[in-house]
């Protein structure tokens, strides 16, 4: 299962109805169904397993306790995803995990294909984790969860231009991190000892 399909799952209306009545078994069904999705999203947004664990627990507890507030005007998975996003961003704000990183906004792009097209999953994963928290969260929400800049701005409580600039910076930084480094070969000229 890839990251995109995580929250694209259907929940049976009967399960949702039971969950709204406070049925713990129905909640377990929903939890098992979305555990990986919620964990992946929490981990991608916060970048730390311990914080992601807290986000997973708190958002799922809220899902159970606030299930009665779910009106059914959007898919249940989307409602649940919003809880996870809210909780993760709240943690980012609360723990001040985000590091303000001043980056050069000028985007230098050549004709060569972008480095993520040939990066393997592990390399891309490592590069993602090295991004500043806000930038990584915006990048993930935009590309994987399909949020618009307006939606991201609302989630962060910031302006649309914040979302756009964070995305541009994250993309640029990711490009830099994935760019193959030219190995510094030691200069051997003149290093040979003369007999």
């Amino acid at each position: 299962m890839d990251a995109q399909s995580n929250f694209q799952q259907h929940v049976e209306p009967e399960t949702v109805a039971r969950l709204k009545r406070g049925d713990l078994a129905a909640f377990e069904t929903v939890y098992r169904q979305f555990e990986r999705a919620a964990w992946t999203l929490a981990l991608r947004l916060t970048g730390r397993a311990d914080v992601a664990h807290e986000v997973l627990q708190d958002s799922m507890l809220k899902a159970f306790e606030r299930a009665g507030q779910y009106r059914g005007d959007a898919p249940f998975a989307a409602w649940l995803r919003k809880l996870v996003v809210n909780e993760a961003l709240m943690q980012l704000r609360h723990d001040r995990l985000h590091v303000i990183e001043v980056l050069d906004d000028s985007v230098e792009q050549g004709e060569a294909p972008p480095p993520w097209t040939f990066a393997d999953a592990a390399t891309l994963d490592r590069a993602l984790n090295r991004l500043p928290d806000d930038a990584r969260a915006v990048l993930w929400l935009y590309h994987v969860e399909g949020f618009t800049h307006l939606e991201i701005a609302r989630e962060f409580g910031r302006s649309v231009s914040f979302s756009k600039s964070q995305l541009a910076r994250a993309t640029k930084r990711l490009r830099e991190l994935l760019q193959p480094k030219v190995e510094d070969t030691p200069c051997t000229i003149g290093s040979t000892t003369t007999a």
Partner: protein
Amino acid sequence: MHDRLDHHGMNGDMNNEASLTAALRALPACEPPHDTWPALAAQLRRRRTLRKTVWFTLPAAFAAGIALAFAWPHLHLRAPLPTPVRIAQPTAAAATRPSAAKPVTDVAALQTSSEQWQAWVQNLDRTGAPLDGRALATAVTLQDRIALVDLQLSAARNPATVASLWQQRITLLQQLGLLHLQPYLVAEQAQPVRAHALPM
């Protein structure tokens, strides 16, 4: 997604962005820790127990507090002994209370018995004298324990366990009822003639 890509607005960037979307979406989903569900379920049960306890004890404590506040000036002026009329109230209630002589093992019978004991305690709570501070604290503890038994009953499946829990509930209700009768027991010690008025 009307605002997607408008920060670039170039075809090359669109391709780059699409390729980044594809690369990120192709990342495998992460494996969550295995111990999350048991911890979550335990936390939910704790929250439910706490909520149930609060719902059960808070109104009782509040009512007892009000009753105590009303009774306090009278108690200070001249602590009067309960009148025969006041003693008659729990006596009447006690006359209708269920028999505790026979051990009951049938769950349905235990449930009925528990309902009767609960009605008896509620009647005492409504009509009896207000509890003092120490008795009130004991009453709250007993109500907590009843709430815990109720929680265990909601999860219990084994018939023997269920019967045992219902029996525990009855015992706790009996203790709660006796607590309400304590003022009358004190009054009765002062006037042993009316020993028949005390519950058995």
